[in-house]
């Protein structure tokens, strides 16, 4: 036995061929737009996490006499808001809640939606019917409407926003997961795995997930930009994050009255939402072509 094992080791090629993920990584690095956007998004996330250590002004400290000061006002590089609070600090601290409520629902929906889609696509039959028809009902609402409907029924608050946005993004992800799983399930090697006695769980774990997770993941990343815009939109409507927390959508709302006094300050929080969502979209496009996923 040992002899056989030894020869097998010797016969192993010295250099391993680069794997699929190494190729994806290399192609992604060759895409300057995608790399730039990744860096921007990472910087925004890091700035939000380490905001207390950046030597910024207190984002909650209001001042009656320093309200709506222009960009470049001494001590306030990006001016002040309608309550005299430092805009730069509020924009950076604002990234905390905006990015959290904008990204976490897609992550949660990715896990729940993929699981539902995998089960529905692999098991089929009446389980598929129950899961997918329920998904269809939620899919029948335009996403903005569904998010607003659930959020307004639950009331304002961070947890409620997370819940409503997760519910909004489960159906599209479950649909993609289901159709990807159903097409993989029809392939011969799944039949072969079943014929050799693999249990459903083993087959899903070993043979199905690896082949469907890529497309589902790419699809989920394409939803992050929409989710960010929706999350900030809920706060903009007053059914998301509550004041006085700094959050880009909420800031955009409370600064609306300032458009006659200092319009460019009023537009700043939206610039942050725009930059983030643009970078998330370009990042997702870059990932899609690096992973060679077709819609």
């Amino acid at each position, binding site marked *: 036995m040992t002899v056989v094992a030894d020869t097998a080791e010797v016969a192993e090629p010295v250099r391993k061929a680069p794997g699929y993920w190494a190729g994806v990584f290399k192609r992604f690095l060759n895409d300057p737009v995608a790399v730039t956007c990744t860096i921007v998004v990472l910087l925004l996330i890091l700035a939000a996490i380490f905001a207390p250590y950046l030597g910024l002004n207190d984002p909650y400290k209001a001042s009656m006499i320093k309200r709506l000061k222009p960009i470049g006002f001494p001590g306030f590089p990006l001016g002040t808001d309608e309550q005299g609070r430092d805009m730069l600090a509020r924009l950076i601290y604002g990234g905390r809640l905006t990015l959290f409520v904008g990204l976490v629902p897609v992550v949660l929906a990715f896990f729940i939606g993929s699981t539902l889609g995998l089960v529905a696509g692999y098991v089929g039959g009446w389980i598929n019917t129950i899961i997918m028809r329920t998904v269809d009902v939620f899919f*029948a*609402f335009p996403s903005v409407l569904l998010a607003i*409907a659930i959020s307004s029924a639950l009331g304002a608050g961070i947890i409620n926003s997370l819940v409503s946005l997760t519910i909004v993004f489960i159906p599209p992800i479950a649909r993609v997961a289901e159709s990807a799983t159903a097409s993989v399930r029809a392939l011969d090697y799944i039949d072969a795995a079943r014929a050799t006695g693999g249990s459903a769980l083993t087959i899903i774990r070993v043979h199905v997930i690896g082949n469907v997770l890529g497309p589902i993941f790419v699809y989920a990343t394409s939803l992050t930009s929409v989710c960010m815009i929706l999350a900030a939109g809920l706060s903009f409507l*007053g059914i998301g994050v509550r004041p006085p927390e700094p959050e880009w959508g909420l800031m955009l709302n409370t600064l609306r009255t300032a458009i006659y006094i200092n319009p460019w300050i009023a537009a700043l929080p939206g*610039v942050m939402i725009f930059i983030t969502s643009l970078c998330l979209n370009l990042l997702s496009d870059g990932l899609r072509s690096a992973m060679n996923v077709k819609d």
Partner: protein
Amino acid sequence: MFAYLIRRLVYVLPVAVGVSIICFLLVHIAPGDPLTAIMPVDATQEEQAAMRSAYGLDKPLPVQYAIWIGKAVTGDLGKSIATGRPVAGEVFSAVKNSLLLAFTASVIAFPIGLLLGFIAGYFRDTIIDRLVTAFAITGVSVPNYWLGIVLVIVFSVQLGWLPSMGAGPGGSGQWAWDYAHIKHLILPSVTLAVVPIGIVARTVRALVGDIFSMDFVQALYAKGMRHGDVLRHVIRNAAPTALSVMGLQLGYLLGGSILIETVFNWPGSGFLLSNAIFQRDLPLLQGTILVLALFFVSMNLIVDVAQAAIDPRIKRS
């Protein structure tokens, strides 16, 4: 075709019932008692009980749903808690204004999106393609409620050319196609058009690019067909998918205009909805969402049927 229509209808009915159940349940996932919004703080137990039975809130849920849906199909969506007026009437006039906004936005968005997408797909991997793609991804990424505010800053506050809010001298009820009204429509509809321009352009670009690389295009050129006639074949192949994207976008425009209507104080369904949210007017909330969602469902149905009508491959599958 008729069989296909029936099949689609049979499929849509359970979805519509499901949608109505979700709208009905919205009131019941709401924390707190829906009555607290209208009852005075010092209301007695008896008064509360009387109000409860007046709104039918003392019955079990399935019974409440049956009563609610039974009335809804006859056009009775209950009474607004805040104003006491019938919900159906308020929703109807608001949806009319939203439709006006959504249709105007799509009249702006679809030709531009189609044209840009086609040009980019035709000149694939050239500088023109890159410019259009950059423009389209900007359109898809922009938070349109912010874009609305920026347009107000530029065209209302700075230049003073266009009004920043409302639907014109006629208020919410009287719309007329004269300049006094149309100038109120310009900013909100342009704002609303930006996202669908991006989506339609992106979809059509990918579609047209793929069709041009198909074998049949090569074959048409090879047999000596003129360039213009080949384009006609490409457009015919792209039409069903492009049509379905535009149909869906029209539905999204109606449901998604809520934020834009809030920015511009446009007296549409979104404006009604945000009022309902702030006054916790649950029957109004329920009714508005039901009407909008059912509109979206029927829009999908129309798109599917229209797609099948022009694309014989769909009926067979």
